[in-house]
């Protein structure tokens, strides 16, 4: 009984800490969203107030949807993020499997080489990347962004996934080999499902910087038809006047897809997977 109560007390304390953290972390998002629904005057007079019938105004959303091709930007961001994510996860997992599963000469060196990219920021190579893209005629295409982001995401993906793949039971893979499964089938049907939580983690870490990036879209794909949403929102931030309604509305809209994708992956993170494969 006493033990149950102390357990209860500890659980309350833990929840209090977590709730405090959640409130602090979500506060900026909350402020952005409430202000996006207010008139310009209300934003400046009382930035923390929730919209009331008197201050409620959809002018920001109206501006955003009218000006520029917002849906086009949105679609571009979606295509770039999803495609990059797909390639990072696919190639990252494959490289990780090769590194963790096969003994070959230079295995360790190859692993270190691939992990080096975690420490060296890809932006250092911007000039060379731009020259390559110009030479290959990929400037102002989404493919340019997808290629760069895939390269950017791979090092961390390989590093994390190869650690997890080392933990997948050898017996399971060997059973597959004896039953005549190809190495590809073993990889896709036996190993990948078992490292799903790690894949979800990598997906979240990879996705957010890509969605938020301003640098490469600005340099590699500034044309109207291939602008991403982050770049597209910049039109509202002027040198002298900033259209705060529009900026806040654009930001609020940009949060949505990240939120949706996060929810999808976090369900994978939590799902109790594949208990009973071994032991």
């Amino acid at each position, binding site marked *: 009984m006493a033990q149950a109560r102390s357990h209860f007390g500890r659980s309350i304390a833990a929840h209090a800490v977590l709730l405090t953290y959640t409130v602090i972390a979500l506060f900026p998002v909350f402020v952005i969203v409430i202000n996006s629904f207010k008139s310009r005057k209300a934003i400046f007079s009382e930035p923390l107030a929730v919209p009331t019938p008197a201050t409620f105004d959809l002018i920001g959303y109206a501006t955003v949807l009218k000006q520029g091709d917002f849906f086009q930007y949105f679609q571009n961001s979606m295509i770039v993020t999803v495609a990059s994510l797909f390639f990072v996860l696919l190639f990252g997992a494959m490289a990780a499997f090769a590194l963790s599963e096969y003994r070959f000469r230079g295995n360790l060196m190859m692993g270190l080489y691939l992990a080096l990219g975690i420490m060296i920021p890809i932006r250092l190579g911007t000039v060379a990347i731009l020259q390559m893209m110009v030479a290959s005629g990929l400037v102002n295409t989404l493919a340019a962004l997808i290629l760069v982001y895939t390269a950017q995401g791979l090092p961390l993906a390989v590093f994390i996934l190869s650690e997890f793949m080392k933990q997948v039971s050898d017996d399971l893979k060997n*059973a597959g080999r*004896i*039953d*005549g499964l190809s190495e590809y089938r073993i990889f896709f049907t036996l190993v990948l499902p078992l490292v799903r939580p790690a894949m979800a983690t990598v997906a979240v870490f990879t996705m957010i910087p890509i969605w938020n990036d301003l640098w490469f879209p600005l340099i590699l794909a500034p044309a109207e038809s291939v602008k991403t949403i982050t770049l597209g929102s910049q039109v509202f931030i002027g040198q002298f006047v900033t259209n705060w309604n529009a900026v806040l509305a654009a930001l609020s809209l940009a949060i949505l897809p990240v939120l949706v994708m996060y929810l999808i992956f976090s369900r994978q993170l939590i799902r109790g997977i*594949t208990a009973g*494969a*071994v032991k």
Partner: protein
Amino acid sequence: MGALTLSNVTKSFGATDVIKGVDLEVNEGEFCVFVGPSGCGKSTLLRIIAGLEDASGGAVTIDGRDVTLLPPAKREIAMVFQSYALYPHLSVRDNMGLALKQAGVARAEIAAATDRAAGMLALGPLMDRRPAELSGGQRQRVAIGRAIVRTPKLFLFDEPLSNLDAALRVQTRIEIARLHRDLGATMVYVTHDQVEAMTLADRIVVLRAGRVEQVGAPMELYNDPANTFVAGFIGSPQMNFLKAGALGMRSDSMGVRPEHLAISRGTGQIAGKISHVEKLGGETLVYVMTDGQGLLTVRLFGEHDYTVDEAVGLTPDLSRAFHFDAAGLRMR
């Protein structure tokens, strides 16, 4: 012609030689057990037979066909692992049928083969469950079933019972023995459990540090060990090794099994004091600290009330003793 032949098989991981030249012939329908201390290379040898590990040298022949360079799936073998290794995303039925499906066997035939194997192992009610919904013993039965379905030339088992509790281990052991009788198949079985080796094997292969020490039927190894290692490894509790010189023998050491050492409260050939007694009901183990021969084990049948610190005398049954030379080899 044997069902499995190993000729001078070697294996090195980098600079470490793990298997140092193994020659072995396993006959058709034989139950062959590999035993040896941990790390001696039993699993590695089994994995070489399975093709999961490439041999560094030598050849593996299964049913008259040289399979040294063939991948595991082409060797017509089946393997049962210590950790069960069932496919987590497939039902019991699909787990058992996967190999045949991969080999392109017709669906009706697969169903017939799975149902036959399920019948042999009483898996009927579990066929549509996932591995996660089974107990440890049930999982291992499914893994054995998966091996049977393929009707392989050779069954390989790597410590299949080590993850099971004692009662289940006995039950599954009996099941494996029955399967071997019913199927008449050739089986190679790795274990470090004395009892499993003695009860299941037609022939035991004793390995030490990557070499075969002795091959023989269980009772041959028990009654006629080739050296001190095999003598000490087969039989439980372990054989006592006496300094033969002190007893007036010309050999270097003399091995006497605990059941062949007589104990009396009076005097014996070797005097000592009891240091510990283990009463198991059916038998009693008495550990005696002797003057000059170290700690010796005596195995008595039935219950006996010896107490610790009692002074006793021990007398070895010389007709059942084994003599070894200084290199540990048997002197006959």
